[in-house]
């Protein structure tokens, strides 16, 4: 795999599910200096704002979503003492319990990995053009915000 392809693998928006182990290993393989890896895994829950949720569909702005995720990775690498950061977000229909989004931050020490990981998921939620349609027993609802 070329350097460019490797780089592309570190920020992805994809329909298919991902393997958390494989993604952790992708980050681990980036540097032998990594001594701590922190992850955030977002999954589909069956309840939201007091209503049952049967399933979720994610829509994204192709191109802009990837661009924003690349910006997040680049800023994380610049602003935190980390060695690598990976972001994968799924789109399309997602069954309750399935993976939605994964952040993996690798650093020499755990504190930097934790900080970068939390910042990256918070930033992703703020600036990435991804929309969530919840399927509920009473109809479909576009979700506008969540903590």
């Amino acid at each position: 795999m070329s350097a460019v392809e490797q780089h592309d693998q570190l920020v992805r928006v994809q329909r298919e599910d991902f393997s958390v182990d494989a993604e952790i290993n992708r980050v681990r393989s980036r540097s032998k200096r990594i001594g701590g890896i922190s992850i955030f895994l977002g999954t589909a829950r069956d309840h939201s704002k007091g209503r049952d949720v049967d399933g979720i569909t994610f829509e994204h702005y192709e191109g802009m979503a990837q661009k924003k995720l690349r910006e997040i990775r680049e800023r994380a690498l610049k602003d935190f003492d980390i060695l690598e950061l990976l972001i994968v977000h799924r789109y399309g229909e997602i069954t309750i319990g399935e993976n939605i989004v994964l952040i993996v931050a690798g650093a020499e020490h755990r504190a930097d990995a934790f900080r970068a990981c939390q910042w990256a998921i918070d930033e992703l939620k703020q600036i990435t053009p991804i929309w969530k349609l919840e399927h509920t027993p009473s109809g479909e609802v576009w979700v506008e915000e969540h903590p």
Partner: protein
Amino acid sequence: MITVKLFGMTKSLADNQPSLTLALGKNQSVKNVIELVNKRYPKLGELIYKKKILVSVNQEIAHEDTKVQESDEVALLPPFAGGAFAATKPDVMRMGSHERR
């Protein structure tokens, strides 16, 4: 002519179309795009004026004065799934929740 991409609830407010084609003249700005959207879909226009829907040009959040040409990629962005819009520019309001349809 210019094509405006729609996402999420903006599609629902525009008869479920994935995009709008607008007759935009030369030397126009985002302000003119919003006026054309508002003429055809007043509900969408209202949400843009309230800054609950943002306009992007070439995949960056735009402002009323941002110039728009036919070759530009324009989109209407409803509030993102993850929360409030980021105040990436000083005059971009942070967005809270708003009434669902």
